[in-house]
């Protein structure tokens, strides 16, 4: 487990129109680890996640104060191009969202827009990404069939493969298992374990068992504030703060 902070936020505040959705969040994301964000609905954990690859930029009316660092550089600096940033910090969404095209084209979409045209190279990227996402064996015979014909769990792994294909350093996952059945969820969690060695992962989940199973560090959010951050084991066995304890023992949320 790396000790280096791959990403870090410093006194991050986010306003949506008149509403302050994040309040002074300072949060580290250690390299090659899985960090889980937990908290009740509307606590700001998804919003926080979306600041890490500037996906909030596309929502009209959001404003940000504070710093978000990737390898010690502020990604909100004027000279940072969000398009380049998002290649480095990929994202998996709550609902599987494959494009209405073939499995192959879904995976090749990212590499193609980033200028890879060579057919052999693309074939290789597609195969490698699907293998890394533990989907290759299930789809290798129907790469040119529509991705919409896959099951929900397969679609979500496809989406992860699509992210891997652009070779990011950090992968953000926003409740990636919330639309999946238990078996698909277990496969997804296995996958997250495997990916950790090569990528830094931040995962939002409302499922505390899942946070306990997959993550090395956990941050607890409440009403836009980061209440507690610690090693996952510690968090779930000996939380320091009363609100954290109340939440993880199921007293609210």
């Amino acid at each position, binding site marked *: 487990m790396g000790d280096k902070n791959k990403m870090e936020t410093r006194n991050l505040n986010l306003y949506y129109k008149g509403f302050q959705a994040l309040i002074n969040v300072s949060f580290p994301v250690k390299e090659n680890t899985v960090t889980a964000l937990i908290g009740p609905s509307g606590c700001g954990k998804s919003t926080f996640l979306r600041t890490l*690859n500037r*996906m909030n930029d*596309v929502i*009209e009316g959001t404003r940000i104060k504070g710093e978000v660092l990737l390898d010690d550089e502020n990604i909100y600096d004027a000279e940072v191009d969000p*398009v*380049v*940033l*998002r*290649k480095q910090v*990929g*994202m998996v*969404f709550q*609902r599987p*969202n*494959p*494009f*209405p*095209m*073939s499995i*192959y*084209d879904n995976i090749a*979409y*990212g590499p193609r*827009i*980033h200028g890879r045209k060579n057919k052999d190279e693309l074939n290789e990227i597609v195969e490698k990404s699907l293998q890394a996402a533990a989907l290759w064996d299930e789809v290798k015979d129907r790469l*040119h*069939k*529509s991705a*919409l*014909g896959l099951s929900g769990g397969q679609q979500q792994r496809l*989406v992860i493969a*699509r*992210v891997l294909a*652009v070779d990011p350093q950090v992968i953000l996952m926003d409740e990636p298992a919330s639309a999946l059945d238990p078996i698909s969820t277990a496969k997804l969690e296995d996958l997250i374990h495997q990916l950790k060695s090569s990528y830094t992962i931040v995962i939002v989940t409302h499922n505390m068992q899942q946070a306990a199973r997959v993550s090395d560090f956990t941050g607890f959010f409440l009403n836009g504030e980061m209440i507690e951050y610690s090693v996952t084991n510690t968090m779930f066995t000996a939380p320091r703060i009363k609100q954290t304890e109340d939440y993880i023992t199921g007293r609210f949320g």
Partner: protein
Amino acid sequence: METRLSNYYEKGIKYFFGLIAGTSILLLFLIFSLLFREGLGVFSNVGVTNFILGTRWLPVSETPFFGALPMIIGSIIVTLGAGMLAIPAGISIAVYLAEVAPRSVREVAKAVIELLAGIPSVVYGFLGLTVLAPVIKDLLNLPSALTAFTAALVLAIMSLPTVVSISEDALDAVPREYREASLALGATKWETTVKIVLPSARSGLMAASMLGLGRAIGETMAVLMVAGNAMIIPHFIFDPVRTITASIAAEMGETVQGGLHYQALFGLGVVLFTITFVINLITDLIFTRTSSVKRGTSL
């Protein structure tokens, strides 16, 4: 007791809607049969080939000729011209409204554009005649300003609201998740629009284009005013033309009911009907083919 009552209620609703749907189909069938009953006479008297491929239309001369080819070509040229102008322009406007414009601009602009659809066609014809035509004549140094191009331009403007409005709806219906996924992969907004949003909205855009063309081919008043109405086969887009619809409207008043001229105009109606039918059929075929591609393989 209660369940039985609600069963009757359900059945009643079912029949009610069935009846309404049936009526509209019946109406279509009646129109269709009227058109054919009145128009078929000309095909047997003049001959199908003479009617469709004949180049002389002299309905009231001593020896009348009923060759509809100039009008058929006129209609097709004007409609295609209008489509080639209105479809790219309309889809571009829709892309601007759906993808680029801020919400406030979008709502105002869309309402205004839809308002354009409410302007009576005779007003468009009038504007085409007094405003557009002189400009076109001066710009291109033409002998007459009333040409197929003028008509196509006016029709393009008239079908623009249809194309824009339906295209915008189609683009708007593309799930936000697609856009977000694309952006999150490091695509620019433009790449996302061209490679994800437009292909995903393809069927809606196609429908928008077809409805736009439908509006253009059926339009009568405006074309009658600006197309020049020369009964000749146009050699290029700046020749005056006469369309099928304009001929029917212009000549119907002079005919004797049941006479050959009268039948010929209904025959024109049949031809027009067939053209629209074929357009719809082709669209349908393209539709099913592309959507199976969409399900099956790649974009």
